[in-house]
C-alpha cells in the first residue's frame, strides 16, 4: 500500500475513465493526459489501463508500505526517494518504507505516478478514476489516504530502462477541427481564433481550460438545444471566451461548440498551466453531409 503523506495541491487516482456511460450523464473522466499515464504504466509492465496517481503541480509526498516498481511521467518534477534523486520516465525500485518526495514541475501541470500492479481502489462503473465533476470514484487524495496496490504477479516483465517523453511547450500550437457549430459564430470567428494566442486562465481544472484572448462573436443568439459534447470540445458561453473540455467535462451542454481539439493535442492542452498560452490552428471539419 501507499500512504499519502501529502497530496500536493491536488491529486487523484486516474485510469482511462468511464467511456460508454455518457448517455446516462456520466462523464468520461480518466487521466487528463492519458498518453502520459499509459507510458508510466508500460514502464512498470502494467496494462495501459491500470490506475495511477495524477498529481497537479507536483508537490506530493508518498510513503511506500511495501516495496514497489514505480514510474513517473508527464510534467517533469524533481523526485527523491529517501533523499536519493530518482528519475522521470524510468522504472524506479522503491524499497519498503521509503518516502517519495515529488517537487514542483519545471514545466507542464500534471505528473503521473504508476505503480507495478496498479492502484487497486474499488472501481465504480468499471473505472477507478476520480470524477471531479460528478463525484464518482474515490475522493481526491488527502493526507492520510491509504491506497492499496494490486497484485503484480500477472504483469509483464519490465523491459525498458527509460523512455523519452515529448518536450513540453508553454505556448503550443493546437489543431482545432472546426464544427460542429462553427456556423453559430461570425464568419471571421475561425480567423479570430487563430489571430493571436489565448492565455490559460486560473479557473482551470479537470473539467475544462478557460481561455482569455479574442472574444468570439456570435452570429446567432440563444442556446442550442442540449447536445452531446465530445472530449476536447471548445465551447463558447455567451461571454465569448472559449473553454476547452477536458476529461471530466459534462456529457451534454447548450453552448455552441466552435471546434474540437484534435485528439493528439488534447493531452497538450491538459498540461498547460494558468498563464501559459496556446495558438489554435483551425482545420476544416470535412464531410458535412446534408
Amino acid at each position, binding site marked *: 500500500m501507499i500512504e499519502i503523506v501529502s497530496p500536493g495541491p491536488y491529486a487523484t487516482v486516474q485510469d482511462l475513465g468511464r467511456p460508454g456511460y455518457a*448517455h446516462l450523464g456520466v462523464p468520461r473522466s480518466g487521466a487528463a493526459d492519458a498518453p502520459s499515464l499509459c507510458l508510466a504504466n508500460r514502464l512498470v509492465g502494467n496494462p495501459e489501463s491500470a490506475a495511477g496517481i495524477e498529481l497537479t503541480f507536483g508537490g506530493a509526498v508518498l510513503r511506500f508500505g511495501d516495496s514497489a516498481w514505480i514510474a513517473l511521467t508527464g510534467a517533469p518534477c524533481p523526485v527523491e526517494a529517501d533523499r536519493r534523486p530518482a528519475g522521470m520516465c524510468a522504472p524506479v525500485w522503491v524499497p519498503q518504507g521509503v518516502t517519495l518526495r515529488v517537487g514542483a514541475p519545471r514545466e507542464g501541470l500534471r505528473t503521473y505516478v504508476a505503480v507495478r500492479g496498479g492502484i487497486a481502489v474499488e472501481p465504480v462503473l468499471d473505472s477507478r478514476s476520480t470524477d471531479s465533476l460528478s463525484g464518482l470514484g474515490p475522493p481526491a487524495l488527502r493526507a492520510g489516504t491509504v491506497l492499496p496496490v494490486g497484485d503484480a504477479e500477472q504483469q509483464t516483465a519490465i523491459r525498458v530502462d527509460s523512455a523519452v517523453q515529448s518536450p513540453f511547450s508553454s505556448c503550443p500550437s493546437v489543431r482545432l477541427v472546426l464544427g460542429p457549430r462553427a456556423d453559430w459564430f461570425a464568419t471571421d470567428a475561425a480567423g479570430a481564433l487563430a489571430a493571436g494566442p489565448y492565455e490559460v486562465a486560473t479557473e482551470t481544472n479537470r473539467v475544462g481550460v478557460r481561455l482569455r484572448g479574442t472574444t468570439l462573436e456570435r452570429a446567432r443568439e440563444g442556446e442550442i438545444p442540449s*447536445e452531446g459534447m465530445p472530449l476536447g470540445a471548445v465551447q463558447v458561453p455567451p461571454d465569448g471566451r472559449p473553454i476547452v473540455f477536458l476529461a471530466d467535462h459534462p456529457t451534454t451542454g447548450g453552448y455552441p461548440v466552435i471546434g474540437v481539439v484534435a485528439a493528439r493535442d488534447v493531452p497538450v492542452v491538459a498540461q498547460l498551466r494558468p498563464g501559459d498560452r496556446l495558438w489554435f490552428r483551425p482545420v476544416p471539419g470535412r464531410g458535412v453531409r446534408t
Partner: protein
Amino acid sequence: MTIRRAGEHALLVETGSTAVAHRLDALLRADRPEHVEDIVPGQETVLVVAPDADQERLESRLAGLLASAEAAGSQEAGTPVGTVEIPVVYDGADLESVAALTGLGVDEVIALHAGSEFVVGWLGFAPGFAYLLGLDPRLHVPRLDAPRTSVPPGSVAIAGPYSAVYPSASPGGWRLLGRTDLRVWDVAADPPAKLPPGTRVRFVP
C-alpha cells in the same frame, strides 16, 4: 437532416426532433457499429463517439440509420424504452411559489404535474439526471434566482419546460414540488440509471 463532424473522433447527427433522436439511439444500440464507444442523445441530436472507427464509413452508416429512423417517424409511437411510474409525495418547498407564479392553486399544480405524460429526452448535469419532456405548459416557470447549495436526492422538480428527479445530492436551481423514494441512480445497479433516454415517465401522488 445533417451529420456534422465533432472533431476527429465523433459525429453529431441532427435528427430534427427528440423522437427521431430516440429511434436512432435505439437502432444504434440494437446493432452497434464497430468501434462505437458512446451514443449520446440530445434534444434533437445524437452524438456518436468512435475514436477507432473510419469516420467516413461510420458517416454513411449513420446516414442510412437516420433515414430508417425518420421513416419510422411517420408512425406515431416509435420505440419507447419502457414506462416508469414514480411515486411522489408532493410537499416540495417551492409548491407555493410555483402556484403564485402560475396563478394556479397548489392542488392544480400537483394535478397538472401528476397528469403530464413525460418522456426522458436526454441526461446531463449529473449522472442519472434525466430531462423529462412533456410538462404541461401552464407549469413552465423560471429557475430560482439563486440556486440552492444542496438539493436532496429524490427531489422532484421543474424548471422551464422540464421536470426532473435529482439523482443525488447536488446544488440545484429547479423548483421543488415533492420527493420520491424511488432511486433513479444507483451505481451498483445495471443499468445504473433508471431513466435512460426514451423512457416514459408518470408521477403518481
